């Protein structure tokens, strides 16, 4: 029964995403834009002393944009949940579903499908743009596996917020912390080339391990794999509890 509920919720969200240009375009165009701006506009950074990423700056930035699109795919799904509460559709879900965990599962599934579409376009554009891939198929499986877990974590985070606030006004609350934690990681250069306060913050930022590991995968020199996957598994577990709390609040609110 839970599976049926999840599939029904997911189907509606995916249908909305694919048939409404206002939802589809930002989801796909934003990552492409960031990839273009960072990989194209900052390529000279690869000439900075100490920058020795084997697959070049395009691949270096691709990993960041991939993980960023994974996170923001989850946040945008949270916007959809908030909109469903504003229009009253989510309340109808709550009335109709015998197992309400299925509703959250449906949104999570929709976010994943949405992210997969974005990644397919992003990867195709990156390869056409001449991105060098040094990693093997197994490495790339690891990279996209990390992205899936980041998407899962971000969706559960945004779901928890959306179900507590139950209004699109909660959008900044979903978006800003995600933006903050992503950009306080080594976005433009590797961690060892950062200095000062940003190095100190990036060193303790869990996203740094995800980025460094992802870049290791695409460069063919796997690094921090165990640490990165440990973080990538723990985050969805924590945010699942957060989302569960949100669901209970939404149930209590009626």
């Amino acid at each position, binding site marked *: 029964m839970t599976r049926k509920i999840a599939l029904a919720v997911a189907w509606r969200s995916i249908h909305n995403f694919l048939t409404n240009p*206002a939802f589809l375009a*930002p989801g796909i*165009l*934003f990552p492409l*834009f*960031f990839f*273009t*701006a960072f*990989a*194209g*506009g*900052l*390529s*000279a*950074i690869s*000439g*900075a*002393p*100490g*920058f020795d990423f084997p697959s070049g700056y395009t691949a270096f930035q691709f990993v960041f944009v991939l993980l960023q699109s994974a996170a923001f795919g989850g946040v945008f799904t949270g916007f959809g949940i908030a909109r469903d509460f504003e229009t009253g559709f989510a309340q109808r879900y709550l009335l109709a579903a015998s197992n309400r965990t299925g509703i959250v599962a449906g949104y999570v599934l929709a976010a994943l499908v949405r992210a997969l579409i974005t990644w397919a376009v992003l990867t195709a554009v990156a390869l056409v743009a001449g991105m060098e891939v040094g990693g093997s198929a197994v490495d790339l499986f690891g990279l996209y596996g990390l992205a899936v877990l980041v998407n899962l974590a971000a969706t559960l985070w945004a779901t928890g917020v959306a179900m507590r606030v139950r209004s699109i006004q909660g959008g900044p609350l979903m978006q800003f912390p995600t933006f*903050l934690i992503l*950009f*306080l990681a*080594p*976005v*433009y*250069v590797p961690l060892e*080339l*950062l*200095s*000062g*306060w*940003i*190095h100190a913050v990036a060193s303790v930022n869990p996203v740094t391990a995800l980025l460094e590991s992802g870049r290791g995968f695409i460069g063919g020199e796997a690094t921090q794999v165990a640490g990165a996957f440990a973080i990538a598994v723990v985050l969805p577990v924590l945010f699942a509890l957060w989302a569960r709390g949100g669901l209970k609040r939404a149930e209590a609110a009626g």
Partner: protein
Amino acid sequence: MSGTLRTQVGQLARRSVLRTMRQPAQIVPALVFPLFLLAVNSGGLKDATSLPGFPTDSYLTFALAVPFMQGALFSVMNAGTDLARDIETGFLNRLALTPLRGAALLSGLLAGAVVLGLVQAATYLIVGLTAGAELAAGVPGALVIVALSISITVAFGSIGLFAALRTGSGEAVQGLFPLFFVILFLSSMALPLDLLQTDWFHAVASANPVSYLLAAFRSLLIEGWDPGALALGFGIAAAVLAIGMFAASAALKTRLVRT
């Protein structure tokens, strides 16, 4: 300016300024977001200063030009959203019943953008200099930076007014933000034009007026006084304002006919 027009502009300007100052949700993001990006970028891109041909050894000084542009982008949203709300709530319809002149309405509405531009410019400059940025042009240069910042904020604000009058929707005005964000990123925002290695990116950034607005700020911060860069910066701001006001005036006429 006739006495009547002055009164009309004054009343609307007062309302616009008060409305802007009473909405922390408009002011705070316009101050915090650009400063956050300044902090992140000046930390993360510090190594760019070691590239041959980079104009300064302080990336913070180079990057300090960017918040002024981001602040101007926020003025598009703020000015446009305020006017769109007036349209959505019917306030503009009520104004249309009065002898109010179009020029007074548009000028008055931009008063909020002037105040916000002033607050933004002063904040960015104080925070930047406190954090260690250099200002080669000295105190007079700081005044010119504030003047340029206000000019650009008002110019971009006029585009927000046009968007609001054309669409009548706050949501549509908010939808412009990504577009302006793209225009900002596809410029010499992160590196000087001559260090942009990707050919197509260099071509786009060279044709992007935002690159020259940034160059005007950077001339004062890094080099001192460069009349050519400043003239280009103020000239572009004036051109954007002229185009924005012309388009907004035309859209206002259409909107008032519709109502």
